[in-house]
């Protein structure tokens, strides 16, 4: 009999899925105004569930910070054969980050957006289930399943509110993601065929044993997975879908999607950073020559996109891609200090990106017919409040001290100082910061200073809950710089834990796995009966 605390790792998956089912049973307001009671009830349940999810995630992070790996074996099946959920420091951090983004976004959506379509809250919870599941799973096929859960929810959420532009972009988004899923399956099937396992801990032990021509096929599989994860993370040249999609989505959905790109980064970390890292034998450091140049290209392309953006959502979406580029540069250095910087930067850029998506909608709503286009318009109703919030968010994305964007980039620059590609990394990170500043300064000055007072200014100010939700995300980002020292200790320990593959294997596989079972897989059966 296991105690309740032992069941904790599965809760981030179970809680949203049960909440979503309850929300589906409650039903929907039907899109009309006559059944608002159901909508209010749904949003209350959804917010309370997200709050409990945050408490669980924080509890997991506290437990993980001691260095314990929490392994949850589904149905008590021993590790390489059954499905395991593993919560280590990185997973716990991602769970907390997901909850911290989800809660303000839910508050914001309850202020209006959730009524513009059907079943918003149920789909939102399914999306959370997929995100949390992807972060805790210790099995590659299970990762595929959670990817699909979060993608199916994201297809519908992306089109929340409908309209021609959303449907047009939605068709592209769905078709591209379905093709990526096909590639994911091919990659996973090849990995299974050559190693006989899909358990991440087991894969890290078995990949080094594959040699000769098989190793080449294995590398093909790993590179296919890089294409898939790179597509989700918006790694160049697979990044062009993102701005169109995020710009077409409604603001709360785009804010939630700020964490969805990070799932791709997380998967690259687990598969290409850890499994195909420097201990992978013939396939060691497989993506190291690829990832860094592609990441630099991603950020440079993205800031060029940001400089040419005509609307605010496109600008923020390109900046999201630019932050993914910076993040992947740090990941691509393949060193523990750089990975620690990447984790810190990831948390900061997700919170700031989500806050920016919400903020620009508040600003756009106060600009009359011009809306989100970056053109002179009538003055906004709350210039001081909106201006200060945008300034804060912008300064953090650019990386001005003392905000967390600065700390994250400083950690990255320090970590890269001994690396062979130090010139490229420094040039890219600093130039991208400068170009981001140009883009945001252009947008900000047009929004708040270059106003046309001849136009009527009929807009009213944003309602307090919406401002509070947006402000909460930006405040969290500021809090990251106040608590920078403990957070940095945590990310350093998390990076070290990721690289400690032996401890991971011992915790996941226990006594039965590993060496004893090594000779029997990949399963070949009785070769004599092969046709």
């Amino acid at each position: 009999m296991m105690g309740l605390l032992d069941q904790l790792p599965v809760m981030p998956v179970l809680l949203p899925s049960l909440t979503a089912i309850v929300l589906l049973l409650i039903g929907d307001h039907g899109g009309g105004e006559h059944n608002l009671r159901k909508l209010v009830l749904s949003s209350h349940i959804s917010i309370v569930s997200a709050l409990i999810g945050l408490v669980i995630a924080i509890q997991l992070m506290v437990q993980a910070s001691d260095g314990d790996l929490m392994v949850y074996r589904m149905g008590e099946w021993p590790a390489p054969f059954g499905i395991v959920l593993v919560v280590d420091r990185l997973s716990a951090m991602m769970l907390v980050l997901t909850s911290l983004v989800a809660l303000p976004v839910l508050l914001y959506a309850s202020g209006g957006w959730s009524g513009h379509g059907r079943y918003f809250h149920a789909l939102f919870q399914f999306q959370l289930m997929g995100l949390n599941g992807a972060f805790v799973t210790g099995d590659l096929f299970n990762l595929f399943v959670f990817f699909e859960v979060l993608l199916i929810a994201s297809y519908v959420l992306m089109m929340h509110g409908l309209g021609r532009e959303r449907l047009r972009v939605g068709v592209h988004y769905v078709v591209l993601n379905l093709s990526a899923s096909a590639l994911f399956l091919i990659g996973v099937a090849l990995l299974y065929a050559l190693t006989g396992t899909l358990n991440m801990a087991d894969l890290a032990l078995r990949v080094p044993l594959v040699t000769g021509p098989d190793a080449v096929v294995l590398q093909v599989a790993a590179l296919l997975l890089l294409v898939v994860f790179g597509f989700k993370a918006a790694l160049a040249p697979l990044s062009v879908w993102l701005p169109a999609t995020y710009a077409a989505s409604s603001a709360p959905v785009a804010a939630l999607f700020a964490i969805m790109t990070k799932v791709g980064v997380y998967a690259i970390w687990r598969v290409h950073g850890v499994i195909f890292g420097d201990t992978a034998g013939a396939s060691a450091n497989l993506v190291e020559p690829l990832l860094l140049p592609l990441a630099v290209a991603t950020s440079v392309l993205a800031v060029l996109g940001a400089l040419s953006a005509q609307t605010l959502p496109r600008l923020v979406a390109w900046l999201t891609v630019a932050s993914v580029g910076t993040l992947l540069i740090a990941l691509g250095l393949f060193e523990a200090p750089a990975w620690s910087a990447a984790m810190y930067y990831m948390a900061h850029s997700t919170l700031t990106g989500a806050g920016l998506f919400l903020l620009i909608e508040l600003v756009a709503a106060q600009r009359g017919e011009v809306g989100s286009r970056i053109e002179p318009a009538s003055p906004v109703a709350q210039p001081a409040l909106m201006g200060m919030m945008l300034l804060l968010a912008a300064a953090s994305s650019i990386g001005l001290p003392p905000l967390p964007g600065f700390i994250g980039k400083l950690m990255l620059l320090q970590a890269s100082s001994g690396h062979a590609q130090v010139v490229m990394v420094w040039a890219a990170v600093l130039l991208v910061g400068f170009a981001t500043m140009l883009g945001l300064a252009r947008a900000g000055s047009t929004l708040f200073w270059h106003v046309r007072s001849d136009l009527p200014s009929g807009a009213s100010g944003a309602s307090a809950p919406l401002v509070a939700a947006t402000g909460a995300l930006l405040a969290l980002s500021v809090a990251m710089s106040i608590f920078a020292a403990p957070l940095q200790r945590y990310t350093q320990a998390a990076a070290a834990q990721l690289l400690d593959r032996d401890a991971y294997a011992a915790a996941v596989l226990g006594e039965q796995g590993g060496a004893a079972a090594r000779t029997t897989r990949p399963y070949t059966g009785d070769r004599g009966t092969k046709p």
Partner: protein
Amino acid sequence: MMPSMEFLVATGIGWIAACGIWLMLRGRTFPVVLGLTVLGYAVNVFIFAMGRLWSNAPPIVGSGQPIADPLPQALVLTAIVIGFATTGFVIELALRSRYESDTDHVDGEPEDQPGPTT
């Protein structure tokens, strides 16, 4: 010499995948959906074949016979279910897009007009 079963299956998967990719590159939503479905079939058979090809080997332990690897069969079931759900969704989406934009072009624009500028 008879071609081996591996050769035949591999060629078949390759041909189906090629057809699926060709269909996916069409400009109308119906061939694209068909292409996704056909590619899904190819991927499903591919996963199945990754457990090696067997004849007269049930995936049951203790039958005294040679045993086929049951895991890819379980994986392919999951993949089929997910593929079925997403195909249903993408068909509905294509219909809705056709209804909203009055064209079944994937860009939501008839070919004789320039593409959207946003």
